[in-house]
């Protein structure tokens, strides 16, 4: 499965490279995080800060559903006109997720842009009070693909599809622990992101995601993974710095 996804991604990159689209110079007013806009020479960094709100499935997490917001910092560093490093930190203090990856972007027409990338994520969590003596961590790989549509006004719409492949899981309770390096296809996330100017030349990101995963790092303390994909709706709000 992992090999199939990687090959699909390479094929997709090749096809996009062959499609000779019209390049468009970056305009500073479009300081975006999700939209697959190339970073031309004038720019080095983009970053945003915001939060995510996730709803866990009621039939599984019952009355202990997590409703805490997740702090979200997202940064992009230019490597070349069409390649960036994408880094992200998600934190709920007791559980955190860091990811970093390379993204390649390509304008197809004046309004249509594509990107493909791959991120590696590391998550860790710990609960050491109220009868808990637990900690866990893991590695996850996220191949992803985005299509961006630039409207004639200032709204930028991005549709992002991302796979999740679990690479490693480790958990400990008291003196007992176990780890698993079983690589398995975990699920997919589809995101619709809207980005536009907000206030004083600052930009706002509003993203709606549907996560369909066997295991989600934010639920490590609630239940173990199953072979059933569970659905988690999520909203992301980001203020582009």
């Amino acid at each position: 499965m992992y090999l199939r996804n990687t090959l699909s991604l390479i094929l997709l990159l090749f096809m996009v490279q062959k499609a000779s689209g019209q390049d468009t110079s970056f305009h500073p007013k479009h300081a975006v995080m999700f939209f697959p806009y190339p970073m031309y020479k004038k720019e080095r960094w983009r970053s945003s800060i915001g939060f995510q709100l996730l709803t866990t499935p009621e039939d599984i997490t019952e009355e202990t559903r997590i409703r805490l917001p997740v702090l979200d910092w997202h940064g992009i560093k230019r490597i070349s006109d069409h390649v960036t490093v994408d880094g992200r930190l998600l934190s709920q203090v007791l559980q955190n997720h860091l990811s970093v990856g390379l993204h390649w972007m390509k304008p197809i027409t004046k309004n249509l842009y594509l990107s493909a990338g791959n991120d590696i994520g590391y998550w860790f969590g710990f609960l050491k009070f109220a009868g808990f003596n637990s900690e866990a961590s893991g590695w996850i790989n996220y191949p992803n693909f985005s299509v961006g549509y630039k409207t004639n006004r200032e709204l930028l719409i991005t549709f992002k599809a991302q796979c999740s492949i679990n690479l490693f899981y480790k958990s400990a309770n008291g003196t007992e622990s176990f780890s698993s390096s079983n690589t398995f296809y975990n699920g997919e996330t589809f995101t619709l992101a809207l980005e536009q100017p907000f206030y004083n030349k600052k930009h706002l990101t509003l993203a709606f995601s549907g996560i369909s995963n066997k295991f989600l790092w934010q639920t490590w303390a609630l239940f173990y993974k199953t072979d059933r994909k569970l659905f988690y709706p999520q909203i992301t709000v980001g203020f582009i710095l």
Partner: protein
Amino acid sequence: MKKLLIILISSSFLFSCKKDYQAPVPDFASWAPFNDPSAASLNIVSRSALEGVYTLDKGADMFGGLAAVKWSYTHNGNDTTFHVSGFFGKDISYFICQGKRLNDSILFNGYWRKMVSTETGIVRLTIGANEGGSLILSRNPVVTRGSIVIKGMFGNGNELPGNELSMVYERKLNNSLSPFLIMAHRSGGRTSDLLPASENSVEMILKTPEFGSTGIEIDVRYTSDGVPILYHDNTLNLRVVRKSGLTGEIKNYSFSQLSTFIRLINGEKIPTLRQALDAVVYRTDLRFVWLDTKFDGPIDEVRAIQKEYLQKAAAAGRSLNIVIGIPGEDQFNSFIALPNYQNTPSLCELSIEQVEQCNALVWAPRFTEGPQNEKVALIHGQGRLAFVWTLDVPEYITNFIQNGHFDAILSNYPTCVAFNYYVHQ
């Protein structure tokens, strides 16, 4: 317009990935040899003889390398129904079958299930006359390694079985931690695990011995007219009950209202505590009931029912313990307000000091603090029992059985605890 269309299409794609899962028990009834008029029930000698740990020759990719085969039964008046269960090590899988003899062969007909997914199907197995059938049906069978071979097929869903399964007798079931209890959460398992009966129902109590359970935990609440019932959540919600139009806290409804208008997910009525304990005492061989108190306030009524059913169990010749759970400080204070509380069997989830103060029969810590062998030894030294809850991760269940000294594991997956306990050496 174009922009709106893009947003609408993307949104519908975004939220189209939510899937409704089901794992219905397949229809396994129509197997001609099993339904042959000359096929007869097995006697207790034959049933006992084939219990054991088996090595899988075929089907190991699907179920793992070992199986623990064990019988269970339930009563209904003068009728007794026996089931043979096979507990496997891979993906929390198991089979549950009825068994019969046909001439000198033994037939098993039933279904298999994987708890980590919705995979299920029909299973049909045979012990041929020369592969242990005649031995098992003899008057005094002496079973040794390799003397029984269980062969057959399993399928997917309602399809006719087409995949081979073969198991060879290896050794007797482990009983070294006796009297170890396999405690099933919410009377047998959570509704979300798509079992054939709803959590906290009489129907689940009657199913749970098939999952290997030897004890149950049930959640007790009061209705507005003071009837103790089995229900986990604070509110009526679609996780637990079918759509009825009634919402809000369950304590605001009378038992009559709940009985008339509310059905659990699989169609059962919410049972009273008395109905549940009636089923335990008179229809199962369960050895332990943990009444998890999901209410604040006086415990007198639950205490009276506990006492009544302990007497009924003793009168019926049953070895059964019923304990009142003390999960928090409020329940602890209500419990020690009871007259003669020190002689009331209880299970305390709090500190060891509080266990001693209320003279609890059982100390029950969360699994998240690990096996805590020193504390468990201290509790055993006081003549008490130690249970651990709620352990669902297969790797931890294995670790706790191999390295811990608890007297019981409470789990949503009793089949997994049963496998690990019975194959443990």
